[in-house]
């Protein structure tokens, strides 16, 4: 087992350059917590100076109880083989975030999807607005207050006899008198 030398060195470099906090989760996983205005400078620094050239993923988590969106950028270095997470928080009612597709071209696709699904504004983002959905007139669907089952039951036809959310334990207890019949015993794997 290695003793996390490279991970600690990376963490110290980033923390001391930008005066932020972070920690080493396990081997090959390091995370830092940044303010939303410094994210693009951290990403540019990591890409040009430290060799973190591969943008693996960009995601958004909706913490509705805290009133915030959490944006997580996942970058990877093919030489050191460490994955670095840059995490930041933005406001949920008027979400605006910096556009990083000047650093990586592929971020354009991720940002278009987040604009449509979460309603986040990225100033300077080009590309058609309708990426996945067509003629959508409700709130952005991945927000936690959007009830997808209610919307589906009202818009689409539901066949009668299809109720939702029966408890599995109750149903098993209702049918608990049934046993495996004789002819089927030789096929059961027990």
């Amino acid at each position, binding site marked *: 087992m290695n003793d996390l030398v490279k991970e600690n060195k990376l963490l110290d470099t980033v923390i001391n350059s930008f005066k932020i906090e972070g920690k080493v989760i396990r081997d*090959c*996983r390091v995370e830092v917590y940044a303010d939303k205005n410094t994210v693009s400078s951290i990403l540019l620094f990591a890409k040009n100076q430290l060799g973190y*050239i*591969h*943008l*693996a*993923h960009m*995601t*958004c*988590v*909706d913490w509705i109880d805290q009133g915030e969106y959490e944006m*997580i950028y*996942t970058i990877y270095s*093919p030489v050191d*083989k460490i*994955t670095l*997470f840059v995490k930041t928080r933005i406001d949920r009612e008027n979400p605006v975030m910096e556009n990083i597709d000047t650093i*990586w*071209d*592929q971020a*354009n*696709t991720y940002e278009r999807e987040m604009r449509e699904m979460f309603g986040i504004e990225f100033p300077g983002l080009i590309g*058609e607005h*309708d*990426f*996945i*959905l*067509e003629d959508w007139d409700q709130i952005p*669907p*991945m927000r936690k207050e*959007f009830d*997808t*089952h209610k919307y589906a039951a009202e818009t689409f036809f539901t066949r009668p006899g299809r109720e939702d959310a029966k408890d*599995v*334990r109750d149903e098993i207890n209702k049918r608990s008198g049934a046993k495996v019949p004789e002819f089927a015993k030789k096929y059961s*794997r027990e």
Partner: protein
Amino acid sequence: MIREKETTLYLGPQHPGITGNMMVKLKVQGDTVVSASTHVGYLHRAFEKLIERRNWIQAFTLLCRFCVPEPDPMELTYARAVEELDNREVPERAKYIRVIVMELARMQAFMLWYAGQSGSAGLYLTPQWSVGDRNYILDLFEDLTGGRIYHMYIWPGGVRRDLPKGWTDKTLRTMDYIEKRLDEYNKILFDNTIFQKRAQGVGIVPKDKAIEWGVVGPVLRGTGIRSDVRIDEPYEVYDKLDFDIPTQEGGDIWARALVRKEEVRQSIRIIRQAIADMPEGEYYNKVSNPMKWTVPAGQAWARTESVRGEIGFHVTSDGGNKPYRVHVKGAAYTHGVTVLEKILPGQNIADVSFILNSLGVCPPEIER
């Protein structure tokens, strides 16, 4: 020189030449493509929203359907992310079984790629052979898990059932048969002048921009960069097995085809070693009450290598019995939108379908 008018062509959702249900809007001048834009969204099912309404175990029924040609890496990546959150150990025998299932899935997806690539070049004998042989691998899956395409076999903690009696002998016999057939495939596709002339020099992905555009998998190995999740960040028992990672220079369709051709032979090698080295023992670290299982709070990121490239899962848990947020990065997410729009200008219309098959664009992964 006559300047031709620019026309818009919709290589639309109903077309025999595209790989799935998506649209590529082309602006052409004569026979040359001037610009291209991808339109997806025809297969959107809102998986990530549906998973938030299911238990940790019920989410498995939805996960297979993310990537239709090769469903097993999705199950494995989710299981690994949940095991990391829950700190759950996996027994040795289960790890070997998982490796065998992954490599079998890689081989059957290769045969489907083989059919698509040669079908878009106009050679219609190879799909009949390769899809017919793929059925032998699907027979193996049916003996093991009960279903041909969607298995739901890999759970957090191990695998669902142990191997049936005689399955390993049948697998070794199937591997011998397929190894002989791979030489026959070479004769009709890779040694065929039509395919060589059409594939060399077409659809080039430049080496210096490849990682910046987000290229992964055989497309990246076809430009000369040696990168594979199985050796960069070994998972399961890949660090104990002995195999090569083929790379080619050039970045065109021919280089990518050669990379894929060699990879399937390495898969056969891995399966033979795994069957020989597999220990006896437990196959499942049992979860005590699966329908009421809660996972501690935290976030995890797991990656695996599928036949198209790197698949990543970002799982967030808030301590409850349902996943709080699952976000999937499909392997061809960037291939289908960013890379395609950059390498299509300058190609012929007849080569658009050829390039789509070679990049391995799979629309269900892009829009989930």
